[in-house]
């Protein structure tokens, strides 16, 4: 079997997953302007939500997945209300909010580990028999196909929301300048709340995808978050469309990297890319 089509397929799948993570991350970043570390833990919570509802309580996936996604969104919203928005209202510096989010991340990760143990869990058995498809010599599973399609859907829906609706307009106004947005009568708290809910829900979905594709463990959140951050920085942080480009670039670099050296170095490769970008193109490949 020729390895190249499979590598390309793997890269695209990884890219799609990173794109979903990056979309949610950038969405939150554009409005709140701080790097939300807890975003990674929210993704983990999403994955474990499905694990709990379907594997422990035996609920149907059609119910448990939406529930877990909504729960992740709600959790992100609650954390924002009780921690970040209070700090923002006090005009705390970005560093303070960053450290607070690091704290939230640590707490959520510990709670998940206490409730579900720190063992590696997989969700794929819940989806029944895994079917595989062959496209141009590359093999992908049905779960990965669903991932690709829903990633594309999320992107299209978000692009529509941002471009065509009042909500999108308000969101862009808030991301340009919170103060001015307030002056022209936009309820910025409400917009930020909605955005955080939406972004966190997307994070939750990404966590669920990973649960079905490979598996989940409580400590995976930081790696996930950082993949999202790396992709965002490649594309220019806060640039939603650039983030997609960054996500796929990262997917390709990682998968072609481990073609030559062994798979354990995947994370090291990703952060090597981050450091290279910080060095040569700190504003990303797409200038804003």
């Amino acid at each position, binding site marked *: 079997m020729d390895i190249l089509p499979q590598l390309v397929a793997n890269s695209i799948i990884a890219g799609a997953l990173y794109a979903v993570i990056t979309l949610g991350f950038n969405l939150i970043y554009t409005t709140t302007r*701080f*790097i939300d570390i807890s975003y990674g833990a929210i993704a983990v919570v999403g994955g474990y939500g499905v694990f709990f509802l379907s594997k422990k309580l035996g609920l149907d996936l059609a119910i448990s997945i939406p529930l877990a996604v909504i729960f992740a969104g709600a959790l992100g919203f609650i954390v924002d209300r009780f*921690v970040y928005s*209070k*700090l923002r209202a006090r005009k*705390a*510096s*970005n*560093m*303070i*909010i*960053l*450290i*607070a989010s*690091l*704290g*939230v*991340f*640590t*707490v*959520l*990760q*510990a*709670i998940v*580990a*206490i409730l579900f*143990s*720190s063992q590696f869990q997989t969700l794929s058995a819940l989806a029944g028999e895994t079917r595989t498809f062959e496209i141009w010599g590359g093999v992908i599973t049905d779960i990965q196909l669903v991932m690709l399609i829903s990633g594309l859907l999320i992107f299209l829906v978000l692009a529509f929301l941002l471009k065509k609706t009042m909500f999108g307009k308000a969101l862009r106004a808030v991301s340009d300048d919170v103060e001015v947005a307030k002056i022209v009568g936009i309820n910025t708290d409400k917009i930020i709340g909605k955005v955080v809910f939406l972004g966190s829900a997307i994070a939750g979905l990404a966590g669920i995808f990973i649960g079905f594709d490979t598996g989940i463990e409580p400590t995976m959140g*930081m*790696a996930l978050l*950082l993949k999202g*951050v*790396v992709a965002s*920085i490649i594309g220019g942080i806060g640039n939603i469309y650039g983030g997609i480009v960054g996500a796929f670039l990262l997917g390709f670099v990682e998968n072609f990297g481990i073609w030559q050296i*062994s798979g*354990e*170095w995947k*994370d*090291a490769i990703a*952060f*090597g890319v*981050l*450091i290279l970008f*910080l*060095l040569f193109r*700190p504003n990303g490949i797409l200038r804003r």
Partner: protein
Amino acid sequence: MEYIIHLLILIGIYGILALSLNLVVGFTGLLSVTHAAFYGIGAYATALLMTNFGINFFLAATLSILITLLSALVIGPILARFRDDYYALGSFGFNIIVWSVLLNWQELTRGPLGIPGIPRPSFELGIMNYEFSSNLSFLILTSLFLIMTYFLSQYIVQSSFGRVLKAVREDEEVIQVFGYNTPYYKLVIFLVGAGMASIAGSLFATYITFIDPSTFTLNESVFILSIIILGGLANNRGAVLGAACLILLPELLRFVGFPSDVAAQMRQLVYGLLLVLLMLYRPQGLMGEYKL
């Protein structure tokens, strides 16, 4: 008594880590979350030099500092160009890279198996041969290093060099206008911090006599960061106080009697919660002289 000495040794080691990180985060205002990487490089370098070549602890610790400085020189100049968010992210990345090197470069580090049988420090003076095999003697050694680190830190921050660092923290652009090459100052203090962390690593490796990569994760960096945030940024006494608080606090949890896996997670939960509460209600920590 052994138990109390054990805790005091840990406080000493984390005190050194906190003092050195405080130079970077507290005095220069750069949010570095990669201290565990240098702690780990120092520990591994010392362990490998001592077990493979039988080098004396004090020489091995000195060589470890050099090795740590070399590795800090890889990331330092890149980080020195940034501040705030990007600085934090770049340092995250470096910590994860170092951790995955420790875990995956199995020919050198034995990967997840770790390095067992690291000898305790010893020295020879003429015919006298002394080994720090008892915990009490090790505590004295650790305290000596802690005191040296403390006075070195104090000296640095009170020197004219230290004043430039504080100026970089308050307003980097202004101090640049005065003709200071700020990336140079940021790099130098980062290297000093890394070198001190290496000493803590050498002590840790020879105290526990076993190391594996799981000690030097990003979580550990976050833990060291929480120490100085609790103790108070830009205050050296605060850094040591913070180390004492955060080492002793989880020991209280020990008496509640959780299973060991849960206990470890409870500790993380407490640290995380502490960070959030501090940021909400007292961002300057216990004795902080600087608010982020």
